């Protein structure tokens, strides 16, 4: 479904991504791991079009999407959530998700319908599935950090993605909130058949859910494979898994 080949990103001479590759089949859950600064976020920004790559290609559903603007990529069914909370602060929780749903339904330039009556069912269903229904009418900026991270995911569901890219979905969450998010991701994968690509610091979580793991270091992808294969890989162990500092936050 997604093929990334020898991707690079040069920030004024610094190679944040330096020959990254990735391959992803429909229905898979794939984790990208690697120390802070390895280039995971940059890789995701390249895939979703927020940044233009210096070289390399990205193919989604067989189509070359390298260098296409983000709004066009989303419309193809490739959506993302962010590491740092990135929501519509002054809108209510409901409206946050509704914006995505309205945009997907191509109502962007509909000037005269009443938005209050539109996309209500679908938006409510999404909020219900992620457990934010009770807060539907709160201003999103006033939510707790954990709830805002969940809203992050809910907004991307509004675009009805086929491939969902999640940048550290549990960053800054309490253990309980992490647990809830983990089961939400399982539900998205198992029940809704979403393909998920995510990166994460929490190793337990990665090994609990990922079908395959890709390891990044200094902008390069060093391996992609089954969790057990990655766990015993020499290069990965040298990189950090086997070392003392499993906690590389």
């Amino acid at each position, binding site marked *: 479904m997604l093929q990334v080949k020898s991707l690079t990103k040069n920030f004024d001479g610094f190679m944040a991504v330096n020959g990254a590759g990735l391959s992803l089949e429909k229905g898979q859950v794939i984790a990208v791991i690697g120390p802070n600064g390895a280039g995971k976020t940059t890789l995701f920004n390249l895939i979703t079009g927020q940044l233009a790559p210096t070289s390399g290609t990205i193919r989604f559903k067989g189509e070359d999407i390298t260098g296409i603007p983000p709004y066009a990529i989303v419309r193809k069914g490739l959506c993302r959530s962010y590491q740092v909370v990135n929501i519509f602060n002054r809108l209510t929780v409901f409206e946050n998700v509704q914006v995505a749903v309205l945009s997907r339904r191509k109502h962007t330039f509909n000037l*005269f319908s009443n938005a209050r009556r539109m996309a209500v069912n679908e938006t409510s269903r999404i909020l219900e599935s992620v457990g934010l229904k009770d807060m539907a009418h709160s201003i999103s900026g006033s939510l707790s950090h954990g709830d805002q991270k969940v809203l992050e995911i809910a907004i991307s569901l509004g675009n009805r993605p086929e491939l969902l890219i999640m940048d550290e979905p549990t960053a800054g969450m309490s253990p309980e909130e992490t647990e809830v998010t983990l089961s939400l991701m399982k539900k998205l994968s198992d029940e809704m058949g979403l393909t998920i690509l995510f990166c994460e610091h929490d190793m337990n979580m990665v090994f609990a859910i990922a079908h395959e793991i890709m390891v990044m270091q200094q902008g390069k992808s060093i391996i992609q494979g089954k969790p057990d294969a990655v766990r015993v890989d020499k290069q990965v162990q040298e990189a950090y898994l086997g070392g003392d500092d499993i906690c590389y936050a």
Partner: protein
Amino acid sequence: MSASPKTDWKKLIWALMGVAVFFVLPNFLSRFSIYLMALIFTTGLLATSLNMVLGYGGMYQFHHAVFYGFGAYTTALFLTKTGLPGWVAFVCAPLASALLSLLIGLICVRLSKLYFGMFQISLGSLVWAIIYRWYSFTHGDDGIHGIPVPDLIASGKSAYYFALIVLVVCLMIMYRIVESPFGRIFQGVRDNPERSEAVGVNVRKHQLVGMIIGGTFAGVAGSLFVVVEGSVFPDLLFWTLSLEILIMCLLGGWFTFLGPLFGAAIIVLLRTFVGIYTEYWTIVLGIVLMLLIFFLPEGVLGYIITRYRSRRNPKFQEG
């Protein structure tokens, strides 16, 4: 907020009552007060049109007066230079302003926030300079006076009613737009352009359309000015007026729909009555602005609404 039909009904009844009051009001007012009210309607429409772009779109529209003045001049020139029926002048004004918004917008939406505002000021000043200099066509500094406004709306009272009706109709359309999918997404763009792009919104195109909408209604306000005042002059496009309109929005509350209307009323009244006693109107304006930033960052109406809500629901806090 929660979208119950009950609150919609309440709003509608309040609005109808308000309009009814303004319909009978001229019977109790002096000629000057009627003129002043009509000027407030005109300026209120202008401020609301800016707020479409500023408060709902989050764009630093620093030179909104250009679209107002451009509309006013279009109406004035059509009425004085052509023999076309009067209504043509009034239809062409918003169209001309829309076109100007499109041109200036095409250049400005490519720029980041502050540059957007700065560049708009320079482009707007260029338009001002052309009108100021082109004496043979626009009468430059002198302006155009004694414009032959159609008889039906020429007298003080009929100008008042015309301005009132146009204001109400325009407010209804703008409210509709704010509550439309376009408006909802526009507010998303205001809050977070990056995320909007990531949910499939073509942000620049959206901003451009928003600018055209704001400019169009500013053009309508410009042609109202011709009706109310019977003259036009280059100050209508000068940047100090843009500053005044900005202050109206901030003063009234730029995150509320009717706030700018209140702000416009306050500023027009202040300018009229303070202007009699002192020529340092701009200094007064500056002081108003400073007090505002320190004490009422959400504006007058914004403040009232927040207070009202927190009293009704103590747990509610605006983020």
